C-alpha cells in the first residue's frame, strides 16, 4: 500500500512556485508539487499552514498571487468561466464541512451538481445516477432525508457521493476525517480507497489525521512554512529524523 507505483505515470496536476498571501501573512511561498495519475497524494501540515488554500487554488475558488497551477495541462488562472466549469466536472472536491445544502433533501443535494451539466450529457436517468452514487457510499436508504437528520459520518458519505456523481478524474479531499470519531474516520478512509480503485481516480488528500494518512497515502508532502518541506512515502517519512517531520508521526 505504501509503495508508490505511479512515478512513471503522467502528471494530472502540476503546481509550480505557487504563492499566496493574505495581507502580511504568506501562507504559500514557492510551493511545488505534481500529482501523478492514479496517485493518492497526502498533503500534511498544521492547521493554518495553507493546505486548504492550496486545493482551493487548484479548483479555482481562490486565485494565487503568482505561480502556475495546471490541471490536465490547462493553466487554471487563464481559464474562462465556462472552461473552469468543464474542468470542475473532472475535478471533484470534498469539503471539510461537507457543505451539504441544508434546505434540500439528499436526493436534491446529489442532483445539484448535475443541474449544470445534464443538458449536454447523455444522462437520461438522473434517479439511477443518484442511487448508484448513494449505493457506492452505502447510504441508499437516506435518499429522501435532509442532511440535518444524518449523523456526521453519514453526511461525510453523502458529501462524497455528491462529489462522485459526476465521476471525476481527480478528487480533492479537504480534511475528510476531521470531526469524526476514529472508527468512522477509518471507514471513510477505506471508502476513499475503494472509490479510487473503482473509478481509477487520482486524489490530493489534505489531512493531519495519521490514521487516514496511513491508509490512503501513496505519497506524502509535508507543507511547512508555505513550502514543500519534505516528500516521500509514509514509511520513508515516519523514519525521518527531522524534528519538524517527525512531530506528525508521534
Amino acid at each position, binding site marked *: 500500500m505504501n509503495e508508490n507505483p505511479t512515478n512513471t505515470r503522467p502528471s494530472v496536476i502540476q503546481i509550480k512556485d505557487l504563492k499566496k498571501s493574505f495581507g502580511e501573512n504568506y501562507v504559500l511561498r514557492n510551493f511545488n508539487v505534481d500529482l501523478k495519475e492514479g496517485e493518492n497524494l497526502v498533503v500534511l501540515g498544521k492547521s493554518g499552514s495553507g493546505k486548504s488554500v492550496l486545493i482551493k487554488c487548484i479548483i479555482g475558488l481562490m486565485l494565487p498571487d503568482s505561480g502556475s497551477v495546471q490541471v490536465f495541462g490547462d493553466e487554471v488562472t487563464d481559464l474562462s468561466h465556462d472552461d473552469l466549469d468543464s474542468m470542475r466536472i473532472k475535478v471533484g472536491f470534498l469539503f471539510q464541512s461537507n457543505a451539504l445544502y441544508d*434546505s434540500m433533501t439528499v436526493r436534491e443535494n446529489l442532483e445539484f451538481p448535475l443541474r449544470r451539466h445534464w443538458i449536454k450529457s447523455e444522462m437520461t436517468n438522473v434517479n439511477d445516477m443518484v442511487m448508484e452514487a448513494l449505493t457506492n457510499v452505502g447510504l441508499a436508504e437516506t435518499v429522501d432525508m*435532509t442532511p440535518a437528520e444524518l449523523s456526521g459520518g453519514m453526511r461525510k458519505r453523502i458529501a462524497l457521493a455528491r462529489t462522485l456523481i459526476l465521476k471525476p478524474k481527480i478528487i480533492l479531499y479537504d480534511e475528510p476525517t476531521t470531526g469524526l470519531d476514529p472508527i468512522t474516520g477509518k471507514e471513510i478512509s477505506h471508502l476513499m480507497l475503494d472509490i479510487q480503485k473503482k473509478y481509477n481516480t487520482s486524489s490530493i488528500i489534505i489531512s493531519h489525521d495519521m490514521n487516514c494518512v496511513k491508509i490512503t497515502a501513496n505519497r506524502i508532502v509535508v507543507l511547512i512554512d508555505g513550502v514543500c518541506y519534505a516528500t516521500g512515502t509514509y514509511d520513508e517519512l515516519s523514519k525521518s529524523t527531522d524534528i519538524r517531520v517527525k512531530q506528525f508521526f508521534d
Partner: protein
Amino acid sequence: MKKQSINKAKLGAFVLIATTLLIVGLYYIGSKKNIFHSTINVSAEFNNVNGLVAGNNVRFNGINVGTIGKVYSSSDTTIKVDFTIDKSSTKYIFQNAIASIGTDGLLGNKLINISPGKGISKSVEEGSVFNTLNPIQMDNALRTLTLTNDNLKVITDNLKGVSEKFNNNNSLWHLLTDSVLAENVRNAVVRFKVTGDNTAVITGDLSKIVKDIKLGKGSVGALLTDTSFSHTLNQTIVNIHSISDSVAIISGNFKSISNNLKNGKGSVGTLLTDTMFVHNLNQSLLNVKEGAGNFNQDMIALRHSWPFKKYFKTQDKEKAKK
C-alpha cells in the same frame, strides 16, 4: 430542519390576488377620475373662475359627470375651461344648459355646476360650448338681504308700536259716548285692523320671499343679481316704511288727544260740547282712515307689481286648493 414544501399553487394564488387587487383598485381610482370612461370634450367661458383648477369635478344637477381638463385665459377678460363629460350622461344634458362655478360644501373644492336651461334643445356633443352664469358674489347678495331685513324689522316694529298704542287705550271707548265719533273710531280701527292684517300677510309673504331668495329657489334667486329689481324692491320697502311712519305720527296725535281726554283737561262733557275739538278729532280720524286706505292701496299695488304677481297668484291658488 424539515424541508419546507413550496406550494406553487399558493404562490400563484397570492400573486393573482395581489395583482387583481391592484387592477381593481386602479380601476376604481381611474373611474373616479374618468380615465377609463368614454367621455366627450366640451368647454365653457367665464369671466372669473374663482380658483377652479384642472381635476375638479363637473356636476349636472349635483351628480358627478365629468372632470375639468384645462383652465386658461382665452382673452383679456375671459377664462376658457375645457372639461370632459361622461358619454353616458350626455343624453340629458342639452346644449342650452347653463354652466356655473360653484363650491363643494362650505370649504370644499371649486366645481362646475351644469343646470338645465329652459326649453328643449339638442343633447351636448363633442366640442359643445356651454352658456355660463357668472358666479353669484355671495357677499353682495348677503348685503342686499341684510338691508331688506333691516327695513322689514323697522316696519314690523312700527306696526307693533301702533297696535300697542291702540291696545293700551281701551278706556278711550268708555270715555267716548259720542256714537258717531265712536262709530268713526271703530271704523277706523277696523280699517287699521284690516290694514294691519294685510300688512302682516304681506310681511309674511315678504319674509317667505326673502327665505326663498335665500335658498335661491327658482328664478327669484337669479333676480337678485338684477340690480334694477332690487332697487324696486328697496323702493317698495321704503314706501311701506314711510306709510307706517305716517301711521305712527297719526296715531301719536291720536294718543295725545286721548291722553288729554284722560288727564281731564276739562271734563268729558266740556270736551264733547266743544265742537271745534270734535271736528278736529273727526278730521284726525278721517286722516287716519285715509292713511290706512292709502296703505292698503299700496299693498294692493305691491301685489300687482310684476315681480310679485306670479308669486301671489300661486299663493292664492294654493289657498284656493286648501
